[in-house]
């Protein structure tokens, strides 16, 4: 599977690459995959299954007919015995047609087998567990997890498996989610907070006790859906696949008519042919290559997404990824590393940098956020130390209303840090005055793309902390690649315009929306969609849910809330929003693979015509058209059919892996792929059929 995705140049984490360490699903068991697929390939010969694939069903019927004329060559009228014994010849044709069917079935079986292996490993994590259901009167009753319904409350004790998807409503505990995310570090779960309150059935509580309200009925949980999807049980044909099937069916009907009418034509010009030859020609001409591989391509596409640790709710969503025109990306966590780090103190009002550091430390001792800790670290680098009794001090938490946090010192002093406006207000309320150099520092930081935090003690502003936003390495190149593919990126951030514009320029996004609210997200999506564009976005919070639902491709983070996950059509188990970019490439790759093999399949027909028609109608004097110089009609037909069967087998790896995708413009892609699969599809069979003809020990 590796290197199938050239797109993820940086950071390189194509599936199977460095992400190995946090692989999703306890390594799917792929041993015996091929043995099972071979068995399945024969099971799928059942006409009730074959009939679902119209192209291959024609081959199936053809095989039966050639088998009949193997037993009795004169079944459909007398045949003059020319060259090779008719029965042996017909038998050979039957044999090759049979294997054409088996190879096509094998392709599908391998693709399905991979999904099944993943599903099995998921299923093993999820045995029927005993749940402690809390009854309305408060007592606890032990029930089977399959008896739980939406809305029930259960008690989970350390060591227990969480019986079903739900929200934590009481208690704090750490949960091992490695079964679904592959992340071995336990995750802290507690009620209230959006993200940390949702738990997934099949994961294990490691410590403490939780009370969980169940949010999914049995069989409808997250893991159940995952199993159904990777297994292909709920696989329905995607719109593009249906359209392509229509074309293939029409082509098949066309060749049916061509072949069915050929017999009287051939008889009329005294160059009669046999039913076995006509069926061979029919099978050679109908698009068996793409017909045999089409479903495997679709299943493999879903599988590729799953390998990338993303669960798609439908193939349609994967396909839509290729069509995306606009990516709406959150700045924090997606474009920049999640945590901003303090990188500089800028003193104002004549204070020294040490003084700012001292004040910042005082304001941040109780701040446990990554930003807060980075401020403490930077302050300690400047030599600041805590000069008060920590026990006697009181931490003031950040709130969205005050937009600042800080410490009430034992001496009655108040150290605060926060948004510059908020601190200005605080200082004014304490009777302090403001100076112009504060604004200069504020603008300076903003212009660098950083977030300025003002620091004050009582009524005095000491300075500004420069919180630096770090753009993820390599993003610029990826946005460039996206632009080359015609995908626009829009960054959303709560930062002010200046900061936002700097980060936007640094990351190389096409557009940004500053001071954005969650409502802005849905507005942006609607605006883009009204222009006929397809939009993809990521989100994790409950307030992202409407936007996720509105977007054509909404990817929810697994760490996000149930609401977000339900509104999205994909869930990223690694909770890595940057993956959206890779999904675009996977979607495109799926469509390209389908188009390339269709083009190849149709282009092959030229060579097959030139192999078969001149040799079987040699009596009509058109032998000179036998440009390949094939030995005899029998050899020509057998060679063409062997090629026809083997090419399916040969292309299975390509169908499963996908055509190599490069981030090029549409015209460059067309040029490249037409050359390989169009022109190549015309030439390759000429060479291959000639070679088979040379090797064949038939006169």
């Amino acid at each position: 599977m590796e290197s199938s995705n050239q797109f993820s140049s940086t950071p390189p984490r194509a599936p199977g690459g460095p992400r190995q360490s946090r692989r999703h699903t306890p390594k799917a068991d792929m041993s015996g995959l091929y043995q099972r697929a071979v068995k399945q390939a024969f099971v799928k010969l059942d006409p009730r299954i074959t009939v679902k694939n119209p192209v291959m069903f024609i081959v199936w019927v053809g095989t039966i007919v050639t088998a009949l004329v193997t037993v009795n060559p004169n079944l459909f009228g007398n045949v003059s015995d020319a060259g090779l014994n008719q029965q042996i010849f017909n038998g050979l044709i039957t044999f090759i047609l049979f294997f054409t069917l088996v190879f096509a079935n094998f392709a599908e079986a391998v693709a399905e087998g991979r999904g099944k292996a993943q599903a099995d490993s998921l299923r093993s994590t999820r045995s029927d567990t005993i749940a402690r259901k809390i009854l309305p009167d408060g007592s606890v009753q032990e029930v089977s997890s399959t008896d739980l319904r939406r809305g029930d409350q259960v008690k989970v004790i350390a060591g227990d498996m969480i019986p079903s998807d739900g929200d934590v409503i009481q208690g704090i505990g750490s949960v091992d989610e490695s079964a679904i995310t592959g992340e071995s570090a336990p995750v802290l779960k507690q009620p209230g907070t959006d993200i940390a309150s949702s738990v997934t059935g099949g994961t294990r509580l490691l410590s403490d006790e939780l009370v969980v309200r169940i949010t999914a009925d049995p069989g409808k949980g997250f893991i159940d859906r995952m199993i159904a999807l990777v297994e292909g049980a709920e696989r329905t044909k995607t719109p593009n696949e249906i359209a392509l099937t229509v074309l293939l069916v029409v082509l098949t009907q066309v060749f049916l008519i061509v072949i069915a009418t050929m017999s009287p034509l051939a008889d009329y010009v005294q160059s009669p042919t046999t039913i076995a030859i006509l069926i061979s020609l029919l099978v050679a001409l109908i698009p068996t290559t793409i017909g045999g591989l089409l479903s495997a391509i679709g299943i493999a596409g879903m599988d590729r997404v799953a390998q990338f640790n993303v669960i798609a709710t439908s193939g349609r969503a994967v396909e839509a990824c290729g069509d995306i025109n606009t990516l709406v990306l959150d700045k924090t966590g997606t474009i920049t590393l999640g945590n901003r780090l303090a990188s500089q103190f800028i003193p104002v009002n004549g204070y020294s940098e040490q003084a700012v550091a001292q004040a910042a430390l005082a304001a941040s001792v109780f701040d446990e956020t990554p930003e807060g800790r980075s401020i403490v670290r930077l302050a300690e680098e400047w030599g600041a130390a805590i000069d008060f009794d920590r026990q006697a001090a009181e931490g003031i938490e950040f709130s969205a209303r005050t937009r600042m946090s800080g410490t009430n010192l034992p001496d009655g002093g108040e150290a605060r840090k926060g948004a510059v406006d908020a601190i200005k207000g605080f200082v004014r309320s304490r009777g302090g005055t403001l100076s112009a150099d504060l604004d200069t520092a504020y603008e300076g930081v903003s212009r660098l793309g950083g977030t300025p935090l003002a620091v004050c003690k009582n009524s005095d502003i000491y300075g500004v902390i420069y919180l630096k936003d770090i753009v993820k390495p390599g993003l610029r190149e990826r946005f460039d690649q996206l632009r080359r593919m015609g995908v626009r990126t829009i960054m959303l951030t709560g930062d002010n315009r200046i900061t936002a514009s700097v980060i936007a320029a640094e990351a190389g996004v096409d557009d940004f929306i500053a001071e954005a609210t969650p409502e802005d997200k849905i507005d942006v999506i609607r605006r883009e969609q009204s222009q006929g564009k397809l939009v993809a976005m990521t989100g994790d919070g409950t307030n992202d849910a409407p936007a996720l639902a509105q977007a054509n491709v909404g990817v929810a983070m697994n760490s996000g809330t149930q609401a977000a996950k339900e509104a999205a059509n994909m869930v990223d188990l690694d909770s890595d929003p940057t993956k959206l970019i890779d999904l675009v490439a996977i979607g495109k790759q799926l469509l390209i693979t389908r188009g390339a093999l269709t083009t190849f399949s149709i282009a092959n027909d030229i060579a097959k015509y030139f192999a078969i028609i001149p040799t079987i109608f040699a009596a009509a004097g058109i032998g000179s058209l036998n440009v390949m110089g094939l030995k005899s009609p029998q050899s020509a037909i057998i060679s063409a059919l062997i090629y026809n069967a083997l090419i399916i087998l040969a292309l299975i790896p390509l169908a499963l892996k996908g055509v190599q995708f490069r981030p090029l413009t549409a015209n460059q892609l067309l040029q490249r792929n037409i050359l390989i699969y169009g022109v190549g599809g015309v030439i390759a069979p000429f060479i291959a059929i000639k070679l088979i003809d040379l090797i064949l020990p038939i006169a």
Partner: protein
Amino acid sequence: MFQGWLQIALTIALFVALAPTFGGYMAQVYLGQKTLLDPVLVPVEGMLYSLTGTEKKEEMTGWQYARAILYSNLAMGLLIFFLIMNQGWLPLNPTGLGAPTWDTALHTTISFITNTNQQHYSGETTLSYGSQILGLGYHMFTSAATGLAVGIAFIRGLTGRPLGNFYVDLIRSITRILLPISIVGAVALMLLGVPETLAGPVVVPTLEDPAVSQAIARGPVAHFEIIKQLGENGGGFFAINSAHPFENPNPATNLIQIVAMVVIPSAFIYTYGVFANSRRQAWLIYGMVLTIYLLFVTLTAISEYQGNPAVNALLGNVQPNLEGKEVRFGWAQSALFATTTTGTMCGAVNSLHDSFMPLGGFVLLSNLFLQIIWGGQGTGTAYLFAYLILAVFVTGLMVGRTPEFLGRKIEKREVVLASFLILLVHPITILIPGAIALAFPEQLAGISNPGFHGLSQVIYEYASAAANNGSGFEGLADSQPASTGLWWNLSTCFSLLGGRYIPTIALLLLADSLSRKQPVPMTVGTLRTDTFLFTGVTAGVVLILGALTFFPVLALGPIAEAFQMAKGG
């Protein structure tokens, strides 16, 4: 030889040069913009609209448009059938001709309402002047206008406009395009010697033996002739069509005839360019068609110029193949006429296609199979873009997006309609009846030259009917009272109807569904269809999908015949 090639080159240069001006004019007509003839035509059309109750010019959906075509064509067909069956007592019948057999009348009616004009009769001895002028002449305008209406409705849909109103398009096509040119053209033909009279045949004593008299057929030919060519009808006033000295007396009239039959389909591609606001794409497509056309003309002309090896062996030197040709036109103008008439679905002939060399026969058949080497009136351009849609669908996936054309996604419905229209209608309407006829060559087909050539004759007849061309390879006993006449009349009716109305409905529904789609903005990730590369890809798709179906037939017909002839058989 040089003269021949020069004639070919100048004729082609003339109609290519006319394309932008005339194509632009047609765009103005169908966009409802001001044109030169407005002062005269606006009141006339106003009267017609109020007379027919189409003053409101309501927009039609695809189905409404298709229904309007079917109903109006049915009504017109019934009228003409009645006219022909009763010509015996109706006026304008100087030679006192009675009614033809019912199947001949039916075939003639269907053949003319479908803009095919396949003729299983001899005009001068079967139909009265009344039937010719009032019946067939009327159809020559309406069926051509119907084709134009379908074409323009398709272009409107493709470019995201509502499809328009069939009756308005029909009327405007006649009043603003077909009629004005026909009036000028008819006068020009008269000046060049084509007769226009209601008087009956002239009876004259023959030169050899003054005691024996001969009737020379004539009639109102000039006005009939110009719309026959311009509307790509092709149904001759006389049995031998444009080879007849009264239909096409000299090289000057021949030039007018060739230019008239190709000028509308060639300029219509430019009209598309105006509608799509992409003259670049129009010229690229135009270039593609022109290239294939030039290739075909060259192939036919060379093979005719080199003549028949068997005849050359007898003569002792290389002489052009003049069997079945008019000496006043020679190999060059015959080859050009034949390639153009089969390519444009006109179907008029100035030489006998049966007598062309096998390679020429190959080209003429291929023209009928492809239907886009200029193609039929209006419908040819529509087919061209249906091919383009298929090319977009097959290869467009290779750029990693759901294929789209002019910003509109090609999805299941479009693929169903386009592939059915382009790929399936032809095999059904040509190969199936062809195979039946060839299975019973004695009882049904009545073939004059058995063997490969006979196969070409049969397939050509159905291909000509299905493509609404109307020319004949000839050599088949397809006219009453031959015993096989009934089979030919009825079986070709199947091909005529199938080849005309199924694609018409499919085209209109396709246009309808495209026009309703929300366009997706163009980005660098969008497959551009106005490039050399994509035009080349389209040519590949046209040749593979269009020709592959008929490769076996071509191999057993003209190709086998060519090898046979090369061996001296």
